[in-house]
């Protein structure tokens, strides 16, 4: 190493202090997890209740029909557009403005003549700019394909992750990882039923993303536990788990923050499609972070207390 000094000058006393307290931890996460588990459970139950009351606000991908995004020549009030659509015989159309002079108009399936009639009507009454910003026709049965594909992808992912975590860690970690994953998925789905936000193919893409990503926090904590299990002579798993989480907490917070930076910027400046992505990803990252702390480790601890072979 040549002449250069290979060690830092430590201010002696303080380092000794750290070494002595090295295994102490600051936050008792598991002790406080009950509250979080209750909040999560209530949120999911609310989500399920809302699901049975009014279901998901399914987008055009699932229902089929037509969606047009129209740029008008001037700003339009929603009541004015509603009136025009009623006059044209499409009072039930779903209207949503993306900017003051831009609207998304959703209807049931339209023939070419019907579409032309609507566009001509809108052009006459308000004035529109062609070409349309977007125009989609979806066959109603199409959703079955998408849903089936998504479910297959979810099942394969879960199976793959289960097997991988099982091999790399232990079966209890693998099962807890899957429970955390289910928790995150249920939280997102509950968000969609409670807020009644439109659920479309983008939402599915987001959910699938969360599937892969939300586990990273859990894996980091598991990795730490694995390491501590190997070296630690501690008598209680709960302390080991708490210690591991305290050690990884800073990393979780920093990573969570940096991952959210660009996503939050998109939430602020992005258009509707981009926002759809950003909201789902934000939720997934937040829920993935806290489930890896407050949902997974308590279950692992309970598991260890239940089965004597793990009991320390």
């Amino acid at each position, binding site marked *: *190493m*040549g002449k250069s000094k*290979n*060690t*830092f000058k430590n*201010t002696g006393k*303080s380092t000794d*202090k*750290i070494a002595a*307290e090295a295994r*102490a931890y600051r936050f008792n996460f598991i002790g406080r997890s009950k509250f979080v588990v209750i909040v999560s459970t209530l949120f999911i139950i609310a989500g399920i209740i809302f699901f049975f009351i009014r279901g998901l606000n399914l987008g055009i991908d699932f229902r089929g029909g037509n969606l047009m*995004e129209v740029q008008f020549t001037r700003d339009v009030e929603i009541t004015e557009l509603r009136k025009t659509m009623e006059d044209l015989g499409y009072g039930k159309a779903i209207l949503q403005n993306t900017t003051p002079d831009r609207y998304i108009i959703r209807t049931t399936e339209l023939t*070419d003549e019907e579409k032309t009639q609507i566009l001509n009507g809108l052009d006459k009454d308000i004035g529109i700019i062609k*070409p349309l*910003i*977007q*125009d989609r*026709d*979806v*066959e109603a049965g199409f959703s079955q*394909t998408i849903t089936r*594909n998504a479910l*297959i*992808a*979810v099942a*394969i*992912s879960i199976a*793959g*992750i289960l097997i*991988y*975590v099982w091999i*790399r860690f232990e079966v209890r970690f693998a099962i807890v990882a899957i429970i955390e994953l289910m928790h995150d998925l249920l939280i997102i789905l509950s968000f969609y039923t409670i807020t009644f936000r439109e659920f479309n193919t*983008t939402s599915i*893409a*987001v959910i*699938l*993303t969360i599937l*892969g*990503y939300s*586990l990273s926090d859990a894996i*980091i904590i598991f*990795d730490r536990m694995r390491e501590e299990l190997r070296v630690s002579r501690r008598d209680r798993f709960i302390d080991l788990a708490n210690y591991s989480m305290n050690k990884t907490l*800073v990393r979780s917070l*920093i*990573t969570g*923050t*940096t*991952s959210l*930076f*660009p*996503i939050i*910027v*998109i939430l602020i*400046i*992005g*258009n509707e*499609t*981009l926002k759809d*992505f950003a909201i789902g*990803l934000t939720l997934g990252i937040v829920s993935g972070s806290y489930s890896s702390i407050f949902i997974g480790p308590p279950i692992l601890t309970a598991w260890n207390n239940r089965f004597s072979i793990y009991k320390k």
Partner: protein
Amino acid sequence: MRNKKVHITVIVIFIIIVGLSFYYIFRDSVGESIKLGLDLKGGTQIILKPVEQGTEEVTNEALDKAQMIIMDRIDKLGISEPLVTRDYNKNLIIQLPGVSDRQRAIDVIGKTAQLEFKILQSIDENGNPTLGPALMTGDKLVRAQAGYNSNGQIVVSMVFTEEGSIQFEKITTENVGKQLAIVLDGEIKSAPVIRQAISGDAVIENIDTLEEAKDIALVLQTGALPVNLEMLEVQTIGPTLGQDSLQQSILAGIIGFTLIAIFMVAMYRGLGLISIVGLLCYIIIFWGILAALQAPLTLPGIAGIVLTIGIAVDANVLIFSRIKEEILKGKGKFAAFNEGFRNALRAIIDSNITTLITAAALYRFGTGPIRGFAVTLAIGVFISMLTAIILVRAILFLAVNSRAITPGFIGVRLPKVAKEK
């Protein structure tokens, strides 16, 4: 020192890769270096589902042929850079960039163009005709052309192959006096009375516009589709929507990157600075790969990139917090760096592999844009491992003996941390 050489070699390799990336980025013009997907560029996407006839299953060969025929038809329409792909459910996905007038494309692409010649046997009182079996089909055509007949009506005239000519002559000889129905996709286009044996060609009548005649001629020439196709989804994105999304994503990327850089430097000082160098290389290499592959970038693809930036930063955060920890344990900086990397590596690889498992499942079972997302996610995970681990490691170990590497450089304040405890 041997190790030093290794680190320098690694850095030189990265400089070469970054240089190569710049070559691809600036090869044409920066603005056009990445091919944009339909949702960012604007255009029409059509998803067609093969319809099974009775119990017969649609074979892959039939779909291959259908895909080729559709490609041929699109080429004849003169649409540039079309893309015809298949998904996991055997659906055909047709992408036509820049096409906003979709009706004609739909008419031409989806038409089965099953041409049949049948004898008209009788017509009942309601005017419903009874047809005999198909005597000949449209695959015996050499050419089909739109034009006018001597009466000024719009027609499509067809020229048969040699075999077709003989067959057609035989049919007409045997059926003089009867009506020969020319059926296109189940619709009787015309049913002229056979006055004498014909050997040359035949015409399709009852066409409204010359445009329609041209389209019929086009689909006849490219041949009949071996499967019937049903339209599942037609989507047209105007050019403005995509541009908005793209600009907003780029802006979000720049602001997000700046925030990450400030944050990382605030947290990890000099180490943060090195990780930002790694992150910059990550972005340049990613851009270079997209430019070199010319794989279309979609909106979900952008979401994938945004997410992998988080993954790339995470690798460094994991390593740095491990290094800090080792230093707080009182280890020397060389040992701390070594241990930090070693301890963090397992966790990084395990968490990245679970992400890759999902990306693989998405690629296999996803449709269109979701696949684009899976691809960017996978590429991102790979490059991030290269830049955030290998490159950052090489830079760090090259600098480890320098006097600049102090606890302050790493962002560790020993006494203060001790007090907090």
